[in-house]
């Protein structure tokens, strides 16, 4: 059965219920060999439960889990070829750094010397040379993070599971660790499956992202695809900032396509096949909306009122309203605009209709 196209992990119709609560619902997902896949969703969406089922810490209520082609539903964690980096790290507080890292090697039939050498190499890998004999309780947050990584990686697992691996770190450190994790993944060539609620982390690190909402898989795709072509309203709204309009298709796909929302007409990309009268939503990202002179040439062009401007450093955020009181947010370079010059005034905004996503309205 071993062949190159076989996925490292294959979840089939996975369900998990805790009493009355449905945590995971009918989830089917493949993780390719060597891939960095992130499970992303709001808190309580079932992403951690899914990871814990893969690791062997929860038993699926229904469905199957295959790891490298083998059904593992009934196997305990110590019989699975996955290793986990836990959200709270779960380092052994009564052991030194070296003992923590060497613990998993105890079960691989290595002698003491080999264990120590491997542990030292793993320490080097995560950039903690010289801390072998330190108590783990004396380490900083970032160092603990690295020890947890080394402890999981030293046993050379084919699959690494990461549960909110950077959740406990502060902004600056988290960003550095994101880059390090990604490098480590490329270097080792093994599968990483991470859980996070932080979209930026998911976009930055992953080869593919699986968006989970209320225990269901909404979309699984590359970060670019997820961000630029969300397939459901939830994904569009959850990832990044999104301006969402609800409306109705008023020209069918024979000619130019248009959408009518609350009295205003918007052009939409013709690649989307909708019929006249369809109820749809239109999504456009704040950073894809141009203002002032740059609007020239865009079919979608409107005169709007600036309600408020927030300075965000990297950019400024304009809160604007259309003549029909529809509100939108726009991100522009903060360099060229000034709060006092615009607030309360009229400006022209516009966007390329190819920068919009149109989705069928979900019945609620």
């Amino acid at each position, binding site marked *: 059965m071993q062949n190159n196209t076989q996925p490292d992990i294959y979840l089939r119709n996975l369900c998990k219920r805790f009493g009355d609560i449905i945590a995971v619902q009918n989830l089917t997902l493949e993780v390719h060999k060597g891939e960095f896949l992130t499970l992303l969703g709001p808190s309580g969406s079932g992403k951690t439960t899914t990871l814990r089922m893969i*690791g*062997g*810490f929860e038993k699926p209520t229904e469905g199957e889990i295959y790891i490298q082609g083998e059904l593992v539903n009934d196997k*305990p*964690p*110590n019989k699975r070829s*996955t*290793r*986990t980096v*836990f959200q*709270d790290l*779960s*380092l*052994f*507080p*009564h052991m030194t750094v070296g003992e923590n890292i060497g*613990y*998993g090697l*105890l*079960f*691989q039939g290595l002698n003491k010397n080999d264990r120590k050498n491997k542990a030292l190499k793993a320490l080097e890998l995560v950039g903690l040379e010289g801390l072998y004999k330190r108590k783990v*309780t*004396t380490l900083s947050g970032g160092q603990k993070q690295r020890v947890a990584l080394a*402890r*999981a990686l030293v*046993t050379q697992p084919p699959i690494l599971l990461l549960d909110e691996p950077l959740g406990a770190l502060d902004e600056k450190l988290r960003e550095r660790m994101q880059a390090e994790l990604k490098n480590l993944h490329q270097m080792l060539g093994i599968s990483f499956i991470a859980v996070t609620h932080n979209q930026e982390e998911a976009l930055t690190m992953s080869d593919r992202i699986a968006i989970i909402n209320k225990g269901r898989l909404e979309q699984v795709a590359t970060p670019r695809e997820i961000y630029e072509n969300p397939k459901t309203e939830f994904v569009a709204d959850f990832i990044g900032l999104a301006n969402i309009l609800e409306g109705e298709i008023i020209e069918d796909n024979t000619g130019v396509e248009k959408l009518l929302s609350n009295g205003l007409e918007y052009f939409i990309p013709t690649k989307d096949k909708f019929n006249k009268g369809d109820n749809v939503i239109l999504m456009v990202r704040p950073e894809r909306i141009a203002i002032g002179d740059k609007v020239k040439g865009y079919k979608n062009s409107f005169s709007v009122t600036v309600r408020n401007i927030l300075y965000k450093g990297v950019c400024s955020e304009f809160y604007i309203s259309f003549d029909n009181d529809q509100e939108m947010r726009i991100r522009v370079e903060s360099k060229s605009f000034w709060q006092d010059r615009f607030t309360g005034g009229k400006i022209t905004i516009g966007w390329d209709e190819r920068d919009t996503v149109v989705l069928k309205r979900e019945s609620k």
Partner: protein
Amino acid sequence: MKAGTALMKLCLWTFLILTILFIFLPSFYLLVISFEPSKLERIPRNFSEFSIKWYIRLFQRERLPGAIKQSIMVGLLTAVITSFLSLFSGLSYRKLRVKSYFLGLLIFPMFVPGIIAALSLSVFFKLINIRSSIYTVVFGHVLYALPYATIVTLVSFSGLKEGVIEAARDLGANGFRAFKDIIFPLTRGGIFGGALFGFLLSLNEFIRAYFLSGWQETLSIYMFGQMKGGADPSIYALAGFILSISILLVLIAVVYFSFIRHSSHSMS
């Protein structure tokens, strides 16, 4: 307002100091008196009145060494059995859903008067034809100490995070190895604390020992006999001796637990 807070602080501290005096004064007076019990009616005025003759006389007694030996035997057995049982209770408690009911069952003996417990056990032993011995006393003392030891053990288990056990399993440890390498080292303090409780409670217990020991005399029974008779003032020396040991044990326990607390603090 500031005066109010200061007044409240004063109140608190006064109460605290009074409470501590209330706890220690009688014991220390006994310790003082144990050197010269004939002066019972008043406080010894100077050290020349102190005497250790009662202490010397104490250890010339015939039955005392035997009673001390019995007590220590019973205490040690109780400690070992109690800490094993409470360890198992702790392990089961983690897995249980109906935690508060389980706890209720386990601490039930705390609510049974000593006399009733002694009576029910002696009746029960008669039923299954077991004769009184130090082993029946141990049985009674385990029953008595188990709730206390279990609570101490559960407290130490409550500091144990499920995550470290999962991490050990994840890294390849089976259930037994996870216990040996992770659970036990991290709850050791509570388990030994439970054993200490078992030993001390057994050593100090009278009523169960009285009804369950048959002809075997423990220290408590010996002392009870001596005091009822009211005969020999060396009983004060014995009391002083035991009190000194108690104080020593408390000091050790405090230092030990403050050490545990300290090391568990630096963990988090």
